[in-house]
């Protein structure tokens, strides 16, 4: 009951829940495209790569305002994405090696800058390392308002380029052959992904952001073969995970929000893998059994 009353009356709680639900919704939508394009782990790389950007933005401006830090994160996230693409395109290094290397090296650079900042006399520096794990309780109404506005813009972009994105998700070479500016579309999609990840850094942190991007999309994929339904379902799954995760973590003193949200997402994925009609494991088992029975009865009839 406490949680319910908090949901209606506690202002800070409302802000955090609203923030997490927006984040979950957007991750679901954008993550669907990432998963379909088999780039699930790009989110992991980008979220780690954001750290040096955050630190550098702070060093250059000695300002801890969220927008400035996140702008830095955005730039270094995009830089990392671009580097991975260049390495894969121009050498024999495979995508996953390039991804792992870029992730770890950027994170190393982030640590170097973080220790550099911590040793500088600037007293304003505390709290930057919070980005590694994220802390939803630091979300302010202002942050959530920005997330809301950015989210609306993102959704409009996705709707506006729906056909193009759809084509690229399913048939990349066809998209190229009919003259779509595939390079720019790719970059646009990558930019949207980086924006969502950067928004999530503050609440769930670097490490768990990738699961928010992958989980809802993978779960939604099991229930449908239509892109539009998948995206809507993923948005709902993400949103629900955000809300439930935040509620559970607010029940106790020592339950971190990010990991709790991840647990909820993982349960939704597990349920989907097991029970989704026509694709799910249990569904397939039942069908197999039915088929065997039919076969057996036909054999009997024949014999």
């Amino acid at each position: 009951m406490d949680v319910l009353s908090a949901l209606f009356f506690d202002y800070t709680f409302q802000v955090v829940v609203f923030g997490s639900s927006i984040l979950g919704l957007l991750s679901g939508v954008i993550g669907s495209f990432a998963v379909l394009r088999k780039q699930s782990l790009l989110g992991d790389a980008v979220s780690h790569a954001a750290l040096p950007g955050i630190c550098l933005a702070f060093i250059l401006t000695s300002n801890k305002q969220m927008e400035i830090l996140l702008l830095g994160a955005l730039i270094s996230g995009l830089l990392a994405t671009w580097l991975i693409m260049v390495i894969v395109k121009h050498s024999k290094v495979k995508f996953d090696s390039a991804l792992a290397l870029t992730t770890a090296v950027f994170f190393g650079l982030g640590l170097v800058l973080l220790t550099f900042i911590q040793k500088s006399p600037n007293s304003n520096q505390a709290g930057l390392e919070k980005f590694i794990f994220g802390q939803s309780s630091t979300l302010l109404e202002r942050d959530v308002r920005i997330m809301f506005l950015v989210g609306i813009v993102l959704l409009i972009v996705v709707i506006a380029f729906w056909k193009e994105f759809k084509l690229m998700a399913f048939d990349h070479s066809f998209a190229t052959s009919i003259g779509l500016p595939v390079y720019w579309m790719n970059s646009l999609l990558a930019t949207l992904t980086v924006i969502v990840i950067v928004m999530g850094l503050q609440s769930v942190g670097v490490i768990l952001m990738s699961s928010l991007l992958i989980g809802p999309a993978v779960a939604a994929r099991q229930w449908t073969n239509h892109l539009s339904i998948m995206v809507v379902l993923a948005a709902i799954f993400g949103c629900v995970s955000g809300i439930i995760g935040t509620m559970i973590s607010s029940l106790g003193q020592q339950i971190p929000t990010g990991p709790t949200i991840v647990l909820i997402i993982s349960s939704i994925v597990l349920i989907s893998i097991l029970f989704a009609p026509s694709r799910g494991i249990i569904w397939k088992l039942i069908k197999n059994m039915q088929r065997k029975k039919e076969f057996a009865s036909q054999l009997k009839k024949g014999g």
Partner: protein
Amino acid sequence: MNPVFEIQLIAVLVSVACALPGVFLVIRGMAMMTDAITHTILLGIVVAFFITQDLNSPLLIVGAALVGILTVWLTELIHQTKLLDKDASIGIIFPLLFSIAIILITRYAGDVHLDTDSVLLGELAFAPFDRLILFGIDVGPQAIYSMAAILILLLLFIGFFYKELKLTSFDALLAASLGFSPVLLHYALMSLVSVTAVGAFEAVGSILVVAFMVGPPVSAYLLTNRLSYMLGISAALGAVNSLIGFQLSMYFDVSIAGMIAVVTGLTFIVIFIFSPKKGFIYELHRKKRQKKILKKALESNHLS
């Protein structure tokens, strides 16, 4: 031994120990699995700690290795359902195990020296504080001995199973048909990766273990086609990266492991650009030459 020397020795041991199994991971296209394992071993350490209540217990390494194997097994299990592709399977399993570890730590181990920061970030500068004392005599930092032991274990494993590793890495089907068990070797390799990661994470942090494991092998991959050379080059690169990274980190007074990771990235970029036969410049040059040849061929065809 003074601390500065000790730190460098530990750094070199860690980076060589990581670079060797990394070669096989890169060849097998499993680089992102290291990322997953280095995160999830935390769960094994936490659970083993709850059982033993002792942070120095060797059971911690066993627990970590088991969870490393569990990670690989679970990932392959859900990938085999064909409902998810490989990337997504990794991306589902490792945040889950890692989240469970974090929740356990924040709820039940708040007052122990097992905070998530030290596991993820590590600090090489602190490694010499943890001394190994034998019969009342201080024989040096514990990390030197544990990493040396892991390195010897790795060398023995690679030396002993070199042919099998080579065969299964390049042609798993052929290996299976010849009677080797790629699966067994695969899990043996993954347990070694977990053990190496556990040995290294306290010094360099989980995430940077990935830089140490993937960086030198990927760089070496651009320099040679031979497995034996690749092993040698990546071990050497690992050692050189550590020494340069250490000097730079002293100069700028910043995170040692972080700086080594940055140097690892820089040496990769240099090799990526300048590598003979596999580098960026060579490739551009080759493409230009091909275009010229093609153009000439086309022209001469038209004229004749």
